[in-house]
């Protein structure tokens, strides 16, 4: 019983309940408007569309929870898709080498981000903003403004195909990949590394004094964010193909999703599952706007209102059970010193 309550507390505490409630609300409204949305095929289509954002949100979560911010993911997604198209150029045999190249590029970008933030002590907003400008410019400089080449069918498998099944008709690879990423992240956050990550975001000084190499933890978080952005690039490239606009504004959507999940900008609070729910909520909102056939121009307004309202509500929830200068709220499990493995 207590474990159930503790688990529920971990999941819904700290303002994260808002996002789950909002997610359910949005789905209920969609259900009323269009019951056929919940038939497996269209649900799977929704999942396929939402998977990249979930992957990005997990990456952004890792960076945000240790107290930083990654604005470069949007342009990194764009860069990876353009690189993939140019290098593969329609040849099936180039798929695997290209994936490795993209992975290496992602790691490099993450490493640069992380080291600029941790070693050069540049605020992550500026560092990743600079990286965003550099990537954006470099890719267009390289391709001359318009992406060239084509993706191979093998490359596009992950984003658009799936395993054929009787009931669902098709179980998308994207769903499996996103689920695997989320599970891996949940496991990671329960490991010593995840605890250290949260500690570094919660109180950098305390973490340093207890022997955490904060710079290393944060750099790894940036690398993981960039690698996940690469993965999201593979999914988006597969799903939507190559255009010059791929990835534009995605960094803000990802940050919105994470913050909607009750993860606090500044670090130290929030769960992976809530971040995932935030990403799903954002995508569900877009779907809802489609169902309502809102004019596409008014969407940003609704989105803005909902984000502010949700975050304000979560901030209120968070502020409530926390009298000034008392022990940690029970929902936030204290960071245990982990046995060295």
């Amino acid at each position, binding site marked *: 019983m207590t474990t159930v309550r503790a688990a529920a507390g971990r999941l819904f505490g700290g303002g994260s309940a808002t996002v789950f409630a909002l997610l359910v609300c949005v789905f209920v409204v969609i259900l009323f408007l269009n019951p056929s949305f919940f038939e497996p095929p269209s649900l799977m289509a929704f999942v396929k569309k939402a998977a990249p954002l979930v992957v990005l949100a997990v990456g952004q979560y890792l960076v945000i929870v240790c107290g930083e911010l990654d604005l470069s993911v949007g342009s990194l997604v764009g860069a990876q898709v353009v690189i993939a198209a140019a290098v593969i150029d329609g040849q099936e045999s180039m798929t695997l080498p290209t994936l490795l190249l993209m992975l290496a590029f992602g790691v490099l970008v993450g490493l640069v981000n992380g080291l600029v933030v941790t070693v050069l002590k540049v605020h992550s*907003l*500026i560092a990743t903003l600079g*990286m965003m400008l550099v990537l954006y*410019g470099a890719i267009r*400089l390289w391709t001359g403004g318009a992406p060239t080449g084509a993706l191979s069918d093998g490359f596009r498998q992950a984003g658009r195909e799936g395993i054929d099944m009787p009931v669902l008709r098709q179980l998308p690879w994207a769903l499996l990949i996103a689920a695997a990423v989320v599970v891996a992240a949940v496991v990671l956050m329960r490991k010593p590394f995840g605890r250290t990550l949260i500690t570094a975001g919660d109180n950098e000084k305390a973490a340093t004094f207890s022997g955490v190499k904060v710079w290393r933890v944060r750099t790894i978080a940036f690398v993981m964010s960039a690698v996940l952005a690469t993965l999201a690039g593979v999914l988006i490239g597969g799903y939507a193909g190559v255009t010059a606009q791929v990835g534009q504004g995605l960094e803000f959507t990802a940050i*919105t999703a994470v913050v909607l999940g009750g993860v606090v900008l500044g670090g130290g609070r929030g769960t992976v599952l809530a971040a995932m729910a935030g990403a799903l909520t954002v995508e569900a909102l877009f779907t809802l706007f489609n169902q309502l056939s809102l004019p596409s121009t*008014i969407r940003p307004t609704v989105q803005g*209102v909902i984000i502010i309202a949700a975050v304000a509500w979560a901030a209120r929830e968070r502020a409530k059970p926390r009298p000034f200068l008392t022990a940690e709220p029970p929902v936030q499990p204290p960071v245990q010193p982990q046995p060295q493995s």
Partner: protein
Amino acid sequence: MTTSTRPRSRGASIRHSRRQLGSTELVYLALVGVLVIGAVLVATTGGNLFGQANLVDMLTRSSLLGFVALGQTFVILCGSLDLSVGYVMALCSLIGATTMAGDPAKVPLGIIAVLVVAAGIGLLNGLIVAVLKVNPFIATLGVGLIIKGYLDTNYKGPAGDVPASFQAFGYTRIGFLPLSTAVMLAAVVLGILYLRRSRTGYHMFAVGGSMEVARLSGIRTGRVLVMAHVLCAVAAGVAGLLIAARFGTGSALVYSSGYDLDSIAAVVLGGTLLMGGRGGIAGTLGGVLILAVLDTVFNILQVDPFFKDVLRGVVIIAAVAIYARRQIDRKASRPRFDGGSPPGPPTPTPDSPVPVQQGVSR
């Protein structure tokens, strides 16, 4: 003080005097450096960076970003952030142009309408941040999105008509100094005076330094935050008016020009800490001028526009990395565990937060 600690503290004071160069001075040194390098590069192609046309180009470029960055400085000093400035600019250019509607008599009305709307948006931003406790990043992004939706729905293209008398604001020049830049410089001076001479100005440093400490010392932190956001939005509104004056109409597409992130980059380039509490408007002006000089030099050298983005990114990161280095040095040199002698008041440096006692004691 015992004799044993004296030599050490003298050593510390020597170290301090060597580091007396504040970050504002450093910004202007960097500006001079950029100007020299730019002038040399331009000279190799046979041009003159300080020719009339190029000077005008530089100053014209700096005026627009100058207004936005000026406002952004207040907000960042308070430890907040405003991502909605680009949308406010677009909205204000449209409101100004449509209110004026080609009638010179309606110019004052247009200006007032813009300032009121901008102040209202700033008030909204400030209240969401201060009262609802929404993270400023999300709050201003959300408000920006709201404005974006309104703009996209109601304005399909350029709208309104700015009378020639107001277009003069965009084009008149006094010698090589554009009128808009002169107005911007005047606003900068007012801003510096506001931060250095007014109570709310002092409080902004305190709030940015530590919200909790400021609150406990009796500052109404919420009001200060709201004030900073209002000033920021009004400055963005003036920038919107300037756009309307230059284009002759209002344009909704301004928001995609990246003024929000550019202004933050200029402020940080000017030595203001993104975490708040330290910095100033003089530095911001330096940051704006550096970006303007870079743009002009790139233009003269006909650098590929995409390569320009790359260079800009690298320059911004490099500059901020240099400041960050200095700030760490200064913190490390503070006599913290200094042999039992009580730490004296920190040596005042030009960019250190001003003491707040004056304001509180009233």
